């Protein structure tokens, strides 16, 4: 287990990577990448049972990035966790790169699935949880969902399946940043009451502060022991860490220009210890 200060530091470094990667690529999704950073850092450093030196190790915990557009943050976390050389991060979205615009597991074998079309990851995670149970294995399956993504009907098909078959080795995390491409989730298509929805579907629900490592840690501990499939509603801020990117849909999928980039880097660096 890594201490809180070190984790916060890691999260800032991941945000700097994301900025630099998107800047180099000329496109990408900073808003939803920034909101998911602490969740990913906590999962890959403190929660998941993994072996970066042996990415396809059968006994590993699985992770599905259902909101595939947040992959810059995931790529940075994987590189910093030792799966590949961080120097490769700047190839994001470039021709020939293993770091495709949305995750491709054949290009990058440390990914557990290729994703990008919203609404599919939770079903894949259910299938994996079924398989793991059939094989009498112990691995836990984690799946990160966007809150806008919950508007996909297929998410609720999977939610039904998980509780019908009681896939308790499955944990979903909702990156509840309240903003989607077109605007605030509540204006585009309201998804509340969110806790009631998951409860009604038979899930164990826990709310966490999505940028607080101790809060996330507690939530994950709870989920790994839950008697039902579990979901963490992680309250986050879209664009977290760069003031002018926060809580706005403008930075859902936009690359900063030179000035914006410098200002953003200054802000994030200010938080480094």
């Amino acid at each position, binding site marked *: 287990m890594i201490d809180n200060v070190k984790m916060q530091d890691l999260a800032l470094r991941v945000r700097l990577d994301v900025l630099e990667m998107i800047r180099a690529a000329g496109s990408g999704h900073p808003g939803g990448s920034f909101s998911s950073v602490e969740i990913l850092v906590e999962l890959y450093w403190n929660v998941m049972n993994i072996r970066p030196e042996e990415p396809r190790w059968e006994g590993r915990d699985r992770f599905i990035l259902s909101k595939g557009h947040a992959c810059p943050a995931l790529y940075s976390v994987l590189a910093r966790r030792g799966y590949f050389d961080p120097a490769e991060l700047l190839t994001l979205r470039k021709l020939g790169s293993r770091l495709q615009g949305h995750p491709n597991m054949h290009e990058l074998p440390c990914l557990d699935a290729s994703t990008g079309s919203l609404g599919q990851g939770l*079903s894949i*995670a259910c299938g994996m949880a079924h398989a793991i149970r059939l094989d009498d294995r112990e691995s836990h399956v984690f799946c990160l969902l966007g809150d806008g993504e919950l508007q996909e009907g297929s998410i609720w098909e999977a939610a039904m399946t998980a509780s019908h078959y009681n896939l308790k080795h499955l944990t979903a995390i909702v990156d509840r940043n309240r903003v989607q491409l077109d605007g605030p989730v509540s204006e585009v298509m309201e998804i509340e009451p969110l806790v009631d929805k998951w409860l009604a579907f038979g899930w164990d629900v826990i709310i966490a502060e999505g940028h607080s490592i101790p809060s996330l840690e507690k939530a994950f501990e709870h989920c790994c022991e839950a008697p039902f499939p579990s979901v963490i509603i992680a309250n986050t801020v879209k664009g977290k860490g760069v003031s002018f990117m926060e809580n706005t849909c403008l930075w859902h999928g936009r690359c900063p220009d030179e000035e914006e980039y410098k200002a953003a880097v200054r802000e994030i660096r200010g938080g480094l210890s």
Partner: protein
Amino acid sequence: MNNLKATREGYVDGILQAGRENSRVVVVEGDVSRSIGSASFGEEFPDRFFNLGASEQDMLCEAAGLALEGFIPFVGTYGVFVAGRAWDQIRTSICYMNLDVRIAGAHGGVSVGPDGATHQALEDIALMRVLPNMKILVPADSNQTRAAVLASLEADGPVYIRFGRNPVPQLYTRDEKVKIGRGNLLREGDDITLVTCGAMVSLSIAASSILQDRGISAGVIDMVSVKPLDRELLLGQAEKTGAVIVAEDHQVTGGLFGAVAETLALEMPVLMDTVAMQGSFGASGSPAEVMKKFGLTTSAIAEKAERILH
């Protein structure tokens, strides 16, 4: 001709045999297992049978998750819903990852009959054929369906197996083997080649007999492997006869005619015509009545053949 049997019976035979021989074979169902018969797999292997209810999108991605963990899922439901409603799931979560998922599309074609247009899959082959990595088998009887199921186990990546609802004549024996990428030359011909698959194979054989009585030697290819197409067999027969009729129980665009026409247009332009659905929806009626209404008949095949040769 021989006794009549629904092709879906061969699907059940096939998955049961596959399940007995390979403990990694699992079945993912969507509340039609009593219709297509796969419920018997669930009775024999309850742990390896997942009925997910009426939720095709979930079914296909669940199958992807099972395949990612080394299982070999057969996902079965009606072709309209599996190929249409869950198309993006098949594209992104199965074909893009090139996973060993076997997809069974039941109720293929207008020959489904009384259920009517909503349940007659007429675009499924087209929808599956455009997807990278997808293979497509369209067997003609229950023995060939069983063989197609077993052949799919040898394939790398996804396979779509399309079969019908209506009983059709048995053309093959229980020893029949299907090989992906290979068609069957059922009859040699000198004047014209009938290229066909599924429910239209027996009609094409009958058309060939009618043509023979009229002095036309018509060969018949059962193109059970619609993708990859048996190019060698097709090009050989097209070169020999110089004329091709494609007969299929599917829309005229994107299916077997599409595959044959694309190949011949580039490699060996010959006289061509087709017997297929001409861009309309199907309708209710007995299978024979509906097929007659839409021109999917033995006499239509024979007439088209005579017409392009004159």
